[in-house]
């Protein structure tokens, strides 16, 4: 081994704590990249494999009642590979151990053949027999949440008639990866499930023999989805088609997709921060090492080693550190990524996971880490390579301090000389001090940028459930009902307030931009389910026109006074124009709202209801639930308080993992920066500090000098960190935001406080580690040598 290699190894061993700190920061950078990209790749691959294996459909449509003979025509649509006509209906369930009414999506399974589209993945048991009207297969999450197994029984209100059902199988389906009940925003596996029954049984119950209410298509590769949708709409129009749609608008797929995209977005935001800090640490450490080794460098050059050889020696040092960091990051990131993928896989109930290793991402992580490290080293190494040997062997000119503003200030304030020392030392290497401040600030920022989500979640829940939709429950009717239904619901036990709503599936358009939405129509003066303005104040829906949520308005590029086109998904896809009359604040979905009477005019018919929102007396809840479970009032019952609790629980659970990871990473950065700064500062000032001990300053007073320096940097970093954190929070919010939900950026005071507390703690720990060295400074040794 060449001598320089030996020196390289010794340097690494000698500087191991600093090297380790840099490696940790670099590892944090590449780990976040690998973690996000890896988990995303695995989940995306798993989803693709699952979709493919179980033939998840490409195009979906619901219809009131269409004859099965239409199937042949549908199959002739260009690009269609498979057609499955089915019956899909919502029904209220009465579960033995659950006081609340539950609901299910009843889906038919073809009798005596396997489905060509959306095949079940059977976990246990078998498919229902065609002849037996009681046999059902249920979705696994629903079964698990209710502790059902093959043989368990429960009751359902099927087209108004109570029927006892027996579970013969438990299964998963690509169609219901993310099974959200109507009116809900998160899966509530206890209260919503998918129930598959024989087609024979369902057709009989719903009077759909020889007919279907839902059709799913699989397209051939390269086929035009838009064309298939348009042709399908044409075919279904006269049978009460409600507008065909692609995967993008399929609930389960859309939610799943949004979650995965968020995961991917996160992996783009953080790594650059860690790598920037790592580059700075490399720069700081290398600059100091080289300053100490000037004479050796001069000597090596005098002995005939070339500039390039010496430059390469230091680059090798950096490369080893970077490869160590990237390697560790890749290992940890892969491990965490697998863990994350498992976590998500469980959450989504994927039947299997296809772990995807992406060596190209590893290469990117390693490359970027090396690059950032070299960027940090470039200037210093270039200076070494250029250093003429004679000059290198001379000791560096003594550090020249100058009088400045600091002096006058110090004298005016009568500062102690030790503090003057500290201030001059900090001010003397402004770039290094600023770099350290920035490094610590970035760690604060990482914490602020992740901790704010709790406050944001609270605001979102408050706005959604306390200010906007304040009802206790939402009842969705089996089919449209006249206004008289209000009185009927009002007469149910305990019900105190009833307000009507209508939900109108439509496409809303401005020019070429179009979204598939449900226009929510409400009665004037509605007090339970309200719409809010920008300041979260409830506003009356305008009598005319349409009110859009801010998100939808932004997507369509319209404001108050502009006109949008509304294509009704039902009623032969008639197109109407509507003026935007208000902009509404919502965080969930793309909302569009109309006054109930205005909606009637839009539909050119009298007022009919799709459901009601109600408030009820909690004392009589049990009576109310008993009625809802046994009489055919509603096809589904959404319960606000429960939805809110589940939403909070799910989010908190998911956030906890993310927050734990980020807080750890933030602490690593803070520790790494402060520790390296302290070590370098100690290395520069060790001699002075020892001579102060000789003069009679105590260990405490001498450590105080270094601690004061660290404190100045750490404190100066806090406000900058808060600002950067706010920026990061906006970046995160943008990454988390999608058309299903928006994340308001609110940073409450406890967020910067916690972030600062955590970084200051990390700084304190690294200061204490360095303090041990100050306590053991060799007083005699420093006196013998010139630096």
């Amino acid at each position, binding site marked *: 081994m060449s001598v320089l290699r030996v020196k390289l190894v010794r340097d690494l061993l000698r500087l191991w704590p600093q090297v380790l700190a840099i490696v940790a920061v670099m590892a944090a950078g590449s780990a976040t990249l690998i973690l996000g990209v890896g988990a995303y790749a695995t989940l995306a691959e798993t989803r693709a494999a699952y979709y493919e294996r179980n033939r998840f459909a490409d195009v979906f449509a619901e219809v009131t009642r269409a004859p099965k003979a239409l199937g042949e025509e549908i199959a002739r649509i260009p690009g269609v590979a498979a057609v499955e006509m089915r019956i899909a209906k919502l029904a209220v369930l009465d579960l033995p151990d659950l006081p609340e009414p539950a609901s299910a999506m009843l889906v038919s399974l073809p009798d005596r053949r396997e489905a060509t589209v959306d095949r079940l993945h059977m976990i246990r048991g078998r498919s229902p027999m065609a002849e037996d009207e009681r046999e059902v297969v249920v979705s696994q999450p629903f079964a698990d949440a209710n502790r059902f197994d093959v043989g368990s029984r429960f009751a359902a209100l099927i087209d108004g008639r109570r029927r006892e059902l027996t579970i013969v199988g438990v299964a998963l389906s690509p169609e219901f990866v993310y099974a959200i009940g109507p009116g809900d925003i998160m899966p509530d596996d206890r209260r919503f499930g998918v129930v598959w029954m024989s087609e024979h049984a369902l057709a009989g119950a719903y009077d759909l023999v020889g007919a279907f209410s839902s059709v799913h298509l699989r397209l051939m590769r390269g086929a035009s989805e838009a064309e298939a949708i348009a042709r399908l709409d044409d075919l279904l129009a006269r049978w009460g088609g409600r507008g065909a749609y692609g995967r993008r608008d399929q609930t389960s797929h859309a939610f799943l997709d949004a979650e995965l995209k968020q995961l991917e977005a996160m992996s783009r935001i953080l790594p650059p921060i860690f790598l920037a800090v790592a580059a700075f640490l490399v720069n700081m450490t290398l600059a100091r090492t080289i300053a100490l080794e000037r004479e050796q460098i001069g000597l090596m050059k005098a002995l005939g080693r070339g500039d390039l050889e010496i430059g390469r020696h230091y680059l090798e040092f950096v490369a080893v550190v970077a490869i160590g960091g990237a390697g560790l990051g890749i290992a940890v990131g892969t491990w965490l990524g697998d863990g994350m993928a498992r976590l998500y896989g469980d959450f989504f109930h994927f039947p299997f996971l296809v772990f995807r290793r992406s060596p190209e991402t590893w290469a990117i992580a390693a490359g970027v880490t090396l690059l950032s490290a070299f960027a940090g080293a470039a200037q210093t190494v270039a200076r070494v390579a250029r250093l003429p040997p004679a000059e290198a062997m001379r000791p560096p000119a003594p*550090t020249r*301090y100058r009088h400045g503003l600091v002096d006058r200030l110090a004298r005016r304030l009568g500062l102690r*000389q030790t503090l003057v020392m500290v201030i001059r030392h900090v001010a003397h290497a402004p770039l290094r001090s600023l770099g350290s401040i920035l490094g610590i600030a970035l760690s604060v920022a990482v914490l602020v940028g992740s901790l704010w989500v709790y406050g944001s979640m609270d605001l979102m829940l408050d706005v959604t459930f306390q200010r906007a939709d304040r009802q206790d429950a939402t009842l969705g009717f089996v089919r449209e009902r006249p206004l008289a239904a209000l009185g009927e619901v009002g007469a149910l036990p305990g019900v105190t307030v009833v307000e009507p709503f209508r939900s109108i599936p439509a496409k809303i358009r401005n020019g070429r931009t179009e979204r598939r939405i449900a226009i929510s129509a409400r009665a004037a003066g509605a007090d339970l389910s309200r719409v809010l303005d920008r300041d979260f104040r409830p506003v009356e829906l305008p009598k005319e026109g349409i009110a859009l949520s801010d998100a939808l308005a932004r997507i369509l590029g319209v404001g108050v006074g502009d006109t949008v086109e509304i294509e009704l998904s039902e009623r032969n896809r008639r197109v109407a124009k509507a003026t935007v009359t208000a902009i509404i604040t919502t965080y969930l979905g793309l909302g569009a709202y109309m006054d109930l009477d205005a909606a009637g005019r839009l539909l050119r018919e009298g007022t009919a209801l799709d459901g009601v929102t109600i408030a009820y007396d909690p004392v009589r809840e049990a009576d109310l639930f008993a009625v809802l479970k046994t009489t055919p009032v509603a096809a589904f019952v959404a319960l606000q308080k429960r939805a809110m609790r589940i939403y909070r629980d799910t989010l908190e659970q998911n956030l906890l993992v993310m927050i734990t990871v980020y807080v750890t990473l933030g602490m690593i950065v803070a520790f790494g920066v402060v520790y390296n700064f302290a070590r370098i500062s100690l290395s520069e000032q060790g*001699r*002075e500090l020892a001579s102060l001990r000789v003069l009679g300053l105590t260990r405490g007073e001498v450590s105080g000098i270094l601690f004061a320096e660290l404190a100045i940097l750490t404190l100066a970093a806090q406000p900058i960190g808060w600002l950067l954190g706010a920026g990061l929070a906006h970046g995160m919010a943008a990454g988390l935001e999608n058309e299903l939900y928006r994340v308001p950026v609110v940073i409450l005071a406890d967020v910067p406080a916690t972030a600062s507390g955590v970084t200051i703690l990390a700084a304190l720990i690294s200061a204490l580690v360095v303090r041990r060295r100050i306590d053991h400074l060799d007083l*005699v040794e420093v006196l*013998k040598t010139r630096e």
Partner: protein
Amino acid sequence: MAAAILRTEGLTKIYATGSVEVQALRGVDFEAAAGEFVVLLGPSGSGKSTFLNIVGGLDRASSGTVRFADHELTTSTERALTLYRRDHVGFVFQFYNLVPSLTARENVALVTEIARAPMRPEDALAIVGLADRLDHFPAQLSGGEQQRVAIARAIAKRPEVLLCDEPTGALDSHTGVKVLEALTQVNSEIGATTLVITHNVAIAEIADRVVHFADGRIVSSATNAHRRPAAEIVW
């Protein structure tokens, strides 16, 4: 002679580095009277610095005792030694050990801030002839000037003991003389017991007494009949 303020008995020091043991001091009995100016001579490695460091409370003896007035240093805690240095001892070393980020005045103030009855930094610097260099940083001063700042820093607390390890070692003759002048002047003005280590036999003539070290022991101690002023020394 006045009563001894500083006294060592049977002082030994053994450095154990790995498997090798170096016996730096082999039983040193020494005393110095208050205000006495003592020069320590002896070949390199004879144990002078080790002795001075132990007397100054920077290092600990392996055996034997060191007394300063009524302090027993050998049994003192780390903290007591720190306070001993802080309150009673002034040090001057070959390499001046100034804090580069502090001016001359501030380097001295570093000590006067924590001393019990210090002089003003300006006065201490005036004693060593640097009244006009108060606001210069070490990098702006010559070697001799830096050493004189170190002396001012050492005397500003009015120490009872002034310990100097080769204070002129890094200086040329002309500058060295200035430093010696400062030392003798301080010795007579504040009455500090002064111990000066040197290689330079010529310097011995400015002392009250000359002590010779060899191989970890004191081999001779001679009182000068008359002290020559520092200004007359040449080497």
